[in-house]
Each structure stands twice: as structure tokens, then as C-alpha cells.
């Protein structure tokens, strides 16, 4: 007989066990009602101040006109810091000078059309805030004016500042 001897092969696979390597066990805390805690995460972003101020361009006055529109100072875009303002003022000597003879002048004022007062500055806080301006020349000034070309330069000053405490 043949025996098939089967060999019993017993296979024994020795499983090689790879040993898991554990770091130090994480600290855990069993959260219970008495050990409940709050976790906080801070979300933050920084928004820089941004704004666009529109200033009137060069303007030609109509002869003999008592009042001429002088455009407007306007905040067309704005993200400004709380408690801050865009403050605009003007510098002018209020005299239009004859180009041929600068000693010959015509007096004028720049007025705030909102209240017809002489413009002395405007505070702009948010988009679309504005001040409409006009150029005022009296009839007497026109009557005594010499012929010729006249001009004057108006300087607009823009200041971004903390709103003054009153």
C-alpha cells in the first residue's frame, strides 16, 4: 500500500506577527457630564481700509454767471475703520488772476451747495457721502472785470483720520 503518506504536512505557518509599535498612548479624557469642557477656535481676517475719493476736475466758469457748478467731492467706494473718516478741505486765495496782468483779479468763493455756505471741509464716512460745490462770483466783480483770461488753482487736501472728539 502505498501509502501515500501524506505527509502530514502540517503546515504551520508561523505567522510572523509584526508587532505594532505604539507610541505613548494618547491621553484621553473621558468626557462626562461633570468633565465637559469647551474648545475655542478663533477665526480671524484682516480688512484693510480702502476708499476712493472723487475730486472735481478743472472747470471753466461761464462769463457773468453768479453761480457755476463745480462738481462734487464724493466717496465712491469705502471700507474705512470704525471711528475714522475721510476728511477733505481746500486751499485757495479766492482770487482769479488775469493772465496778462496778475494784479487784476476777480474775487470768488467756493460754496457748499447743500447749505449755500462757504465750503470749509467735508467729512465722508461711507460710500456715496458727498458734497456738491459751486463757484460764486458777485455781479459787482463781473462788472469791474477787465477783459482777458483768468484762472486760479484750488488745492484739495484729503486726510484719513480718526473722527475728532467734540
Amino acid at each position, binding site marked *: 500500500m502505498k501509502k501515500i503518506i501524506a505527509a502530514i504536512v502540517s503546515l504551520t505557518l508561523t505567522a510572523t506577527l509584526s508587532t505594532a509599535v505604539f507610541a505613548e498612548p494618547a491621553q484621553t479624557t473621558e468626557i462626562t457630564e461633570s468633565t465637559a469642557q469647551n474648545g475655542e477656535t478663533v477665526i480671524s481676517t484682516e480688512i*484693510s*481700509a*480702502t*476708499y*476712493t*475719493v*472723487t*475730486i*472735481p*476736475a*478743472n*472747470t*471753466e*466758469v*461761464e*462769463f*457773468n454767471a453768479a453761480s*457755476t*457748478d*463745480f*462738481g462734487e467731492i464724493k466717496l*465712491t467706494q469705502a471700507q474705512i475703520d470704525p471711528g475714522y473718516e*475721510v476728511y477733505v478741505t481746500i486751499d485757495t486765495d479766492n482770487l*482769479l488772476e*488775469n493772465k*496778462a*496782468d496778475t*494784479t*487784476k483779479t476777480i474775487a*470768488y468763493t467756493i460754496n457748499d451747495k447743500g447749505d449755500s455756505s462757504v465750503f470749509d471741509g467735508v467729512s465722508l464716512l461711507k460710500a456715496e457721502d458727498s458734497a456738491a460745490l459751486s*463757484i460764486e462770483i458777485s455781479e459787482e466783480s463781473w462788472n*469791474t*472785470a*477787465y*477783459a*482777458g*483770461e*483768468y*484762472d*486760479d*488753482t*484750488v*488745492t*484739495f*487736501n*484729503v*486726510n*484719513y483720520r480718526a473722527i475728532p472728539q467734540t
Partner: protein
Amino acid sequence: MKLKRIIASILALSLTLTTGAAVYAQNHEIGPNTETGEPDPNSVNTVVSFSVDPTYTVTIPKTVTLTKQTAGGYASTAEISASDVKIQSNQKIVVKIASDFTLDEIDSGETLSYTLKVGDAADAIKNGDEVASFTTDDTTASELNFAAEDPTYSGTYEDQVIFNIELETEKKVMS
């Protein structure tokens, strides 16, 4: 004796002012400096301008009639005036006369000399002389005093006088 007449031409000049409508250029736009947040630029210049065209009206008498004077001779006074004068500060309106200062009798051709004096001037005006001037600040009328001796012959004597109006500009003296 027929009245003597000096015919002068009327010149009334009026310049119409050209008024331009207000013209707007593009506005300035100012925003913040990206690093500092301050306005950049922090100031801009805007030019305000206008133009005043010259204008004036000069009035000259159309006719001047000499009348018999008690003391003898013939005389009359006329005036050259100006209004609504608006010219440059270094300019003046000047009126000059063109005349032979001779009256002609319209039928016979006889002649009679006459004189013209301005205001209280002692000397008579000559052909081409200035008889009036005006500025923006001074529009005082000029008084013209015509005079003629008694003519030998009667008749109607006439002369046509030309008044030339010019705008003179002072020339700067270079030093």
C-alpha cells in the same frame, strides 16, 4: 445866413461777448496707499478759469451844426463818449480824427476853415490827432469844440469828418 453844418459819421461799435458753457474735464480720484492706508496723493490741484471777451460802445455824433455866436463867428460843442467798456488793463480805446478842417459851400464851392479843440485845450487839433481815449476804468466823455470865423459869403457849408477808432495796447519797455 444858412447854418453851417459839419457832418460827422456815427460809429457805434459793440462786440458781443461769447460766453462758453461750463466745461468739465475728468475728475481726480484718490485712494489709499496700500502700505500705509493714507491718501495717495493727499492733495490734488484743480484749475478754475474763465475768459472775458473785450466789449465797448463808442458813440460819435452824426451831425454837428455850428450856430452864430454873439461874440462873432460860428461855434458848436459835441461829445464823443463810450459805454460798457471792458478791455484789458493794458489797453485803451483811442479815437483819432481825419479832416482837412475846411468847410465847403455846397453850391458855390466857397470854403471856410474851422478849428477843433478838445476840452479846455488851448491848441487846435491837427489831422490825425487823438480826440478821445477810454479805458475800462475811465470812460470820461471827450468834449469837442468846433469854431469858425464869419464867412465872407452866405450859403450852406459842410465838411465830412472821419473818426477812426483803434484799440491800443501798451508795449512793455524792456530794461
